[in-house]
């Protein structure tokens, strides 16, 4: 049995694309047949749940019962990966709560894998967040995600300033999510399905959707770039599933990507 993994996707700042990155991660794991469940902390309405309803629960991550629902079941769940999409402003407090309940200590004992995808915005405030967040994550996998999907130019950043923050955290890994055309992005939002389902031209119920093939092509191209980035940082390796991952890589192309897998 592979070691369970908990992946936290968050940022203290809003509108930086946390849910978008969560969606790409769910598609990525689905494409690699890694059972995943997700928690959407945009309580009560939910955002991630719109796209991946079958595997997503909306929770209030600040409430103890919901924290129990997530963290007490990490090892007993059928899903190897537990992904938590943390709403804006709750990243630091969630990490504090995880430290207080001893969850972070579990990762030190190597009982599970803990990874944080910290989505960076274009402002200098995002860099301050890195310092704030990294102190909790000495034994966690820490991914700093530069999300360009909304054409973020990171205009506030001085490269040297960024590097000074980045270099303070030797185990941090940078991930870049490239830009997707606004129109394609908008259409997937409207379709309210996983990216992979949109590419396969299906609706949530599996019926043909009749999406523009140009837009599907752009989304496919973009998602493949994102997947390549996740491969580059050896994301599947952190799940302690090296054999499975290398077999998949050896197999080359995944020619059929079932949208059902992304939903189930």
């Amino acid at each position: 049995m592979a070691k369970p993994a908990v992946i936290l996707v968050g940022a203290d700042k809003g509108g930086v694309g946390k849910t978008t990155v969560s969606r790409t991660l769910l598609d990525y794991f689905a494409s690699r047949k890694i059972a995943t469940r997700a928690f959407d902390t945009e309580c009560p309405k939910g955002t991630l749940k719109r796209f991946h309803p079958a595997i997503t629960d909306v929770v209030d991550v600040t409430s103890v019962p919901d924290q129990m629902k997530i963290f007490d079941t990490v090892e007993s769940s059928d899903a190897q990966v537990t992904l938590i999409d943390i709403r804006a402003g709750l990243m630091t407090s969630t990490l504090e709560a995880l430290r207080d309940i001893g969850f972070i200590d579990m990762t030190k004992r190597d009982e599970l894998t803990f990874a944080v995808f910290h989505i960076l915005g274009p402002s200098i405030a995002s860099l301050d967040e890195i310092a704030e967040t990294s102190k909790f994550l000495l034994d966690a996998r820490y991914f700093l995600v530069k999300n360009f999907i909304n054409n973020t130019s990171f205009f506030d950043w001085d490269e040297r300033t960024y590097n000074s923050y980045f270099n303070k955290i030797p185990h941090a890994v940078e991930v870049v999510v490239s830009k997707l055309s606004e129109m394609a992005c908008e259409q997937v939002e409207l379709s309210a399905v996983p990216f992979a389902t949109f590419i396969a031209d299906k609706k949530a119920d599996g019926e043909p959707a009749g999406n523009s093939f140009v837009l599907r092509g752009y989304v496919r191209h973009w998602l493949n770039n994102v997947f390549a980035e996740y491969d580059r940082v050896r994301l599947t390796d952190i799940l302690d599933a090296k054999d499975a991952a290398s077999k998949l890589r050896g197999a080359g192309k995944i020619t059929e990507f079932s949208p059902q897998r992304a939903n189930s």
Partner: protein
Amino acid sequence: MSAPSIDRYITAPRPEPLRRGGPAPIYVVCSPNRQVGKTMLARLLTEHYMADARPVAAFDLADEGPGLADFLAHHVTIPNIRDIRGQVRFFDGLIETGNVPKIIDLSHREFANFFTIVDKIGLFEEARRRSIEPLILFLIDPSPVAAKAYGLLRRRFAGISLLPVRNLMVAKGLPYCASFPHASTLVVSLEISMLGPAARALVEREKFSFLDLGKQASPYSDMSVRTRAELDAWFRRARFQFREIELSLIREQILTALQVDLSAGLQSALAG
């Protein structure tokens, strides 16, 4: 030209076998260079279909005149592929009406942009899945740019018919094999033969149509019998080659259909 695709994870759907029925290919008439005869070939092709009263859709992606639309104004659409809305309109439309042959006259300036988009969105794979055969008709010339672009297309769109077209007015004596190896299952080669100066001057006049050669109005009334005969023979020669392409496509369709039937028969025999 884009770098080799990294679409290693989610590929476009596997092509379906070609449908039975008349071929309605997408012809992309192209070259990275100007003044090599792209618009002329696109005109000949369009008028080839029009001559038989067959439906055809022609697209002018030339950004300098005179373009295809200047000669066949009522039959040509000018798309805009510079923005995504235009791309959706053009490329989605291109594969939606699969029963009409499409001819794209691609400007040398749009060459890289067009094929980058085609690569990203998987146009040719999607067309094939819908039983539409894409054919790249590449006007060859002696420049190294042409040879390099041809090689890039050949590598990037392996499996797609890439036909070198020799326009004898610019590429006389230029061997195909060295820089422009035939890259198609269609065993045809295209050649645009030479035209005398008088005939050439006539065909380059805007609004000139091969279909109107029999008309008595100007400029057709001004031409000599010899020029008229030369143009008529020239158009016929071109059409003969286009028919060869169509025949090759039909043969490919039949072969594919036979292979599908054969493998289905084998599978059911094995299952039984």
